[in-house]
């Protein structure tokens, strides 16, 4: 037998290179897929948007607006502040909003989420909750506006 002919070796090497290129290609594609398929938790940003919408609705130039007097419940809050708290992906309510200004307080949504307020940030598989305190004027007196916004949406954001 004569093994001096190296042409066969080159063919074997070409196949080997194609296999390696294939493995690397599959690795890069699956790497990108794995990275991009992990959910980003946007509930903090959504909470911020919701807080801003509520604050701009019930406070005007630092004073409690007339709209706040018209709001007597959650449904009023949705109508008057032009909020849409429905989510087609879920049958159950995914939000909890609590607003307290002076003696008047209204709440809307699933109040069980309130229990998660103050939970550690690292625990992602629970509803996100944030409490905001701001001072506003009502009849030329400062009153505390206590706003609690909580969003569940665990499956979409934090699995």
């Amino acid at each position, binding site marked *: 037998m004569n093994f001096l002919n190296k042409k066969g070796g080159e063919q074997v090497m070409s196949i080997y290179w194609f296999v390696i290129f294939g493995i690397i290609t599959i690795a890069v594609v699956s790497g990108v897929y794995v990275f991009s398929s*992990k959910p980003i938790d946007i509930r903090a940003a959504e909470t911020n948007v919701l807080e801003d919408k509520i604050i701009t609705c019930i406070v005007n*130039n630092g004073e409690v607006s007339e709209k706040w007097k018209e709001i007597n419940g959650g449904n009023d809050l949705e109508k008057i502040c032009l909020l849409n708290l429905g989510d087609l992906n879920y049958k159950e309510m995914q939000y909890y909003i609590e607003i307290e200004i002076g003696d008047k307080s209204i709440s809307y949504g699933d109040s069980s989420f309130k229990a998660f307020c103050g939970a550690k940030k690292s625990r992602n598989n629970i509803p996100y909750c944030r409490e905001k305190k701001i001072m506003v004027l009502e009849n030329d007196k400062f009153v505390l506006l206590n706003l609690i916004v909580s969003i569940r949406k665990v499956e979409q954001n934090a699995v």
Partner: protein
Amino acid sequence: MQFKNKKGDVSETMTWIFATIIILVLVGVFLFAVSFLGKTKSLTGFNSYSYDESGIANKEMLLAILSKKIDGKSILEKINEGNYESVSSNVKGILDEFSKEGVVCNFYISEKASIISLMSVNNSAKGKEVSININGKEVYLRC
């Protein structure tokens, strides 16, 4: 049979076997790292910018402070008049009132980049700083 110098062929094969193993290990490490990094993704990437604070709440509070009337005149009017001593004592009182409710703020006025009046309960206010320009004077609030 003629086997001319087989040592070279064997060592070359071994080299490629090891190279293949290294490539596969690197691919494994890459996939593991990507999977780990995927979990730490955030909207802001690696930036320290926080999307949590838009500053609307602080802006409303600043407007509330400026609209507050003391002795028949609002803080805004007193700033316009340049009555900074009165503004300073009044705003200090307001910020004390805020801090009793758990809202800690810093408030200062600057003109031509130099601070002309600074009021704060303490320096632990960490929110987004907002400002309003009043006839060339910049009024800042951070809560």
